[in-house]
């Protein structure tokens, strides 16, 4: 409708003006400009019957800008490929596996990589019950309270009750807000055994938290998966992520990927004291110097940099790979992420960030996992 009224204002015969008018009204995001150009060309050139194009960038079913909530699948029983049948049988097993306390305990400490399909299903369910809360930071916004800022408005209002005599001062205090979270996960070949569960974990965290959670994955290049993870239906979300990411289980280039992150996204997602989680085993085939530089830059730009390494769970693991050695001096925390218990530890730590100091220049080396 806007476009129609806009067309009254311009010379419709002039292609360039029509193009700019349509673009300014219909496109609200820089990333969509290219897509619009293609659509426009098509509209201008061909009759409608011949519109048969493979739209660039719409592999994820055309839900670019709006985080619409896709309804969850109606019937689990409708033949939905392999999913539905296996899901119901899995649910049965799940109950069986998590039946007793000791079973649950055993699962909590079992390495993700060694789990059977049933066990990992059970763990996914247990993951959903993890409580996530990221520590808060003081925002610049004030609210009435016991802070050190005088609230003149309320003070005056109150004084009017006593004929303008100020009997008590009112104060304001800063409002607290949870810190934004950024997750950058390695999905290269060496991480393959963990990838699925970790994606579940990211998804769970994203849906449990109110504040913005930005998610990225990389192996040889970086992909932002925040948008696809916004859908409520987990299976569909993961499927969309899969379609978006071109390099599952490829090689690892951590340095380059972090550089892309720092250059293209850093300024956009690290504002407001973000906490950054990098999930990777540190097997890096890229340039080590680059990795060092980008880790240092990332650390300077965020409130807390936490490296999660699934290999750290193994009792005899020593962080000696080139990648890890380069990155370690720059991280605040270096934690395992190989089983459910380690995720619980992480959840505790995220809640607790404020009470710990922001860390010196060296990574805090945690004790070996229990």
């Amino acid at each position: 409708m806007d476009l129609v009224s806009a067309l009254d204002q311009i010379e419709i015969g002039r292609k360039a003006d029509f193009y700019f008018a349509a673009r300014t009204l219909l496109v609200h995001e820089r990333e969509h400009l290219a897509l619009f150009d293609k659509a426009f060309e098509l509209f201008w050139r061909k009759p409608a019957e011949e519109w048969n194009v493979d739209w660039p960038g719409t592999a994820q079913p055309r839900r670019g800008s709006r985080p619409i909530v896709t309804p969850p699948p109606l019937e689990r029983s409708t033949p939905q490929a392999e999913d539905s049948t296996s899901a119901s049988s899995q649910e049965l097993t799940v109950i069986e596996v998590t039946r007793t306390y000791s079973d649950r305990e055993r699962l909590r400490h079992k390495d993700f990589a060694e789990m059977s399909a049933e066990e990992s299903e059970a763990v996914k369910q247990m993951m959903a019950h993890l409580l996530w809360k990221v520590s808060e930071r003081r925002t610049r916004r004030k609210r009435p309270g016991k802070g050190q800022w005088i609230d003149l408005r309320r003070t005056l209002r109150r004084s009017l009750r006593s004929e303008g005599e100020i009997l008590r001062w009112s104060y304001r205090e800063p409002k607290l807000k949870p810190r934004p979270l950024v997750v950058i996960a390695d999905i290269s070949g060496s991480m393959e055994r963990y990838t699925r569960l970790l994606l579940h974990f990211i998804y769970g965290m994203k849906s449990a938290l109110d504040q913005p959670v930005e998610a990225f994955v990389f192996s040889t290049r970086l992909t932002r998966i925040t948008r696809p993870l916004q859908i409520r239906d987990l299976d569909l979300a993961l499927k969309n992520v899969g379609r978006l990411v071109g390099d599952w289980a490829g090689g690892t280039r951590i340095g380059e990927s972090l550089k892309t992150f720092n250059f293209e996204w850093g300024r956009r997602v690290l504002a407001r004291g973000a906490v950054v989680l990098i999930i990777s085993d540190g097997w890096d085939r890229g340039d080590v110097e680059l990795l060092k530089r980008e880790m240092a830059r990332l650390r300077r730009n965020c409130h807390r940099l936490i490296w999660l390494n699934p290999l750290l769970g193994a009792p005899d693991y020593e962080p000696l790979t080139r990648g890890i050695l380069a990155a370690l001096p720059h991280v605040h925390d270096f934690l395992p992420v190989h089983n459910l218990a380690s995720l619980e530890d992480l959840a505790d730590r995220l809640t607790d960030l404020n009470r710990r100091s922001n860390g010196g220049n060296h990574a805090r080396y945690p004790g070996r996992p229990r």
Partner: protein
Amino acid sequence: MEFTSIDELQSAMREKRYIAERGLATSLYLALKLRRPLFLEGEAGVGKTEVAKILAALLDTDLIRLQCYEGLDVHHAVYEWNYTRQMMHIRLLEASGEKTDEAELFGPEFLLRRPLLQAIEQSKEKPPVLLIDELDRSDEEFEAFLLEVLSDFQITIPEIGTIKTPNPPVVIITSNRTREVHDALKRRCLYYWIDYPSFEKELEIVQTQLPHAPVQLARQITGFIQALREMDLYKLPGVAETLDWTTALVALDQSALDPVIVDETLGAVLKYQDDVEKVKGAQARLILDRVKAGVD
């Protein structure tokens, strides 16, 4: 001033020394005609804020600017009571033995008008240009509030009543994308992404803004900056940097670029140490040779 065509607007802007692309002129023209806010995004230093200033000059009206920051609240964006004056007033009345009248205390006399209220009040007479600068720096709370104001251009002050205007101000919103602005707000606006200009356009900008700069210098600087934008730098130089650099070199009486002066003044162009290190010396010389071969 009323504009009856995009061409007219574009050439009027040119007269005010703002070289606008056709697309930007179209968006501005439509924003004026449809009375919709214009949402401008682009890298730092491409002239987003300048658009509002030029527009105010063209329309011969006031520019009211609201600089956004985190924690920006109603008291700084819309209105606030002048408490110190109020308290003084109470004291004065007290001294002369009178009683305080609350209605008087919260009357227009004690009201501090902040940008949004100013813009709406002035719109009754002559709609000003309201520039909401760097919206991405504010927080979600303010964004939600702004959405409300932009939809019906009225503000309610409990003690006074509702203030509204039949003619909304011309609203320009800018953002540097340090945060995604909510879709609901964007949908209310026209959108334009200001890109870095082409060589020809940037040269034109330099020459209109700094007419006394030697032609050869202007060409070389523009070429150099364009080459820098092709590089893998942390922060690319904007048009503002091009102009700064030109001004600096003119002040140093340079009529052409040479390797020494480039190295010495690179700080006017590149604002990150990493970037300066990368360009300084050999790389700068390389670009310079290429630029000289290309543009002279």
